[in-house]
């Protein structure tokens, strides 16, 4: 009431003033270009495309389903779907993107593309030093710039990557089990067919039963 509040405030600022010279906890500034702290695991900047294995073109998880392109609120993704198909990680033939471009000057880092992707193909990057001298081409990232290995994803988001890996391993196991039962069934069918063949000696039925399980294992 009589100015004690002002004195209290002055004491507080004086404590900060002198405290910042002696205690390191007070002075939390990181002098950025020289000093750096590792980015937080939950940090997100711009999306990138994950690929498995060594060859990025072969291992790309993206199947060009274009869900992210449709869901993107600022419409910064452009995808051109391939005409032909190639097998994905479980061996099923899928389309792949001929062109996949993200305009990072438009992207608002909302992570909606990541959330809608059913194939774990697009994830958020933590790299933030993306300045460029070319403000048109330099900010439009193409497929080669966007594709990054799964090892990199594991490194920047360990928790998220572990979940994704577990889920994919499960899927893979399921697919393998399915394939195994299918091949078993095929083998059984083949054995049956052989038995029937031995009995009836008609070759056409054996061929048909052998080709079907093959397709089943792909699916």
């Amino acid at each position, binding site marked *: *009431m009589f100015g004690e509040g002002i004195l209290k*405030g*002055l004491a507080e*600022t004086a404590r*900060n003033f002198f*405290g910042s010279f002696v205690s390191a906890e007070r*002075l939390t500034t990181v002098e950025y270009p020289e000093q750096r702290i590792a980015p937080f695991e939950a940090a997100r900047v711009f999306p990138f495309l994950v690929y498995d294995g060594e060859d990025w073109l072969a291992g790309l998880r993206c199947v060009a389903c274009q869900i992210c392109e449709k869901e993107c609120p600022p419409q910064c993704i452009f995808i051109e779907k391939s005409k032909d198909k190639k097998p994905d990680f479980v061996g099923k033939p899928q389309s792949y993107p001929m062109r996949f471009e993200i305009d990072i000057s438009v992207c608002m880092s909302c992570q909606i593309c990541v959330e809608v992707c059913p194939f774990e193909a697009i994830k958020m990057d933590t790299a933030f030093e993306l300045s460029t001298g070319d403000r048109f081409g330099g900010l439009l990232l193409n497929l080669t710039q966007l594709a990054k290995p799964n090892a990199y994803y594991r490194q920047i988001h360990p928790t998220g990557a572990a979940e994704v890996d577990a889920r994919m391993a499960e899927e893979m196991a399921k697919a393998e089990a399915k394939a195994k039962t299918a091949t078993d069934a095929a083998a059984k069918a083949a054995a049956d067919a052989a038995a029937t063949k031995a009995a009836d000696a008609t070759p056409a039925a054996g061929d048909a039963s052998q080709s079907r399980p093959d397709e089943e294992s792909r699916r």
Partner: protein
Amino acid sequence: MTATASFARSIIETSDQIFVLLKQWLVSFLPAAWQPAAGVVLCVAAIVGLFPALFALTTVLERKGLGRIQNRIGPNRVGPLGLLQPLADGIKSLTKEDIVPARADWAVHFLAPLVLVVAVFMGFAVVPMGRNLVLVDMDAGLLFYFAMGASTELAIFMAGWSSRNKYSLLGAMRAVAQMISYEVALLLSTVVVVMMAGSLSLTKIVAAQNQYTWGLPHWYIFTPWGLAGFLMYAIATTAETNRSPFDLPEGESELVAGYHTEYSGFKFALFFLGEYLAMFSVSGLGATLFLGGWSAPFSFLTWVPSWIWFFSKLMLSIFVFIWLRGTLPRLRQDQLMNFAWKFVLPMTLLNLLVAGLWRFMGEGWERWVLCTAILVVAYVVMGRMGMRREHFGPRSYRYAE
């Protein structure tokens, strides 16, 4: 023994008067008829060079100090510890485009920063910065100082009005309202000093304080009326120089930048310079009036050159200005006006009476007790009255319901 003593005394004397002797030596190269004029030009050049240099130093120290108050590091990129920051800022403001709004009154718009800086510089002419170190030893120095100080308001209104911008005009209106309100309190708070010293001459006011009893100086701040006067002076000058917490005229969160919204480049730098120079100037005057000017704080320290004492007092007040800026939030316009007219002004008026009482009660302890008691009681009563909250009943609407 006496030879060493006299040698020591001459060293002290020379270091005290070094600037005066330097001026005399430089002037002595000229013919006698030119010497007085050349001396004045030299002194003016020294003032015009020194205070902007101090301004450059203060800006970087202020930014670093405020940073530390907020647990930041502050500028540290340009030069060692960021000390060359003002150089970078100066180059920046010199190379920036100077924009005059299309419909502005360009002549007034051009003149405003010049008038401000010139008026502020004039104030330094009468402030004694050391023993014999005053440009013009005027009999009515204090009056001259306040006349010059008051003309800065004109410059600010010129700037706000000529810009033809609503933020500028609002800022200028606020500035004028604030500066005129506090000008009254400022003048009245210094009148007590004139009453005691019996002179408007700033050198005589310093001389009156430059005496010692038991090694302690007779500074006016060490008397009840002097302390009260000094506090009122500090409040009024903070408002006069538009410093936080009284920085409403340039409140950046409300008015873009107030009266200098439409200024860019070097004209803006001149406003900035004028503001800081005003701060140095009022700090110097405050030191002269209440803190004994260039006199030493203890009698055994009188061997230290007088100008060192003056500038350390000045820098100390600058430090307090920065400290206050780092602490207090901005006032509201009605709080500002209430504070000026309902608290500061009555206190300064009462202080005049107290100073009169002090003068006529003569030596002795009674006057200390009585004067302190009057001021403390007035402070408590006025503080209570000022802080009293008015309680309003539930709001009733006449037409809305």
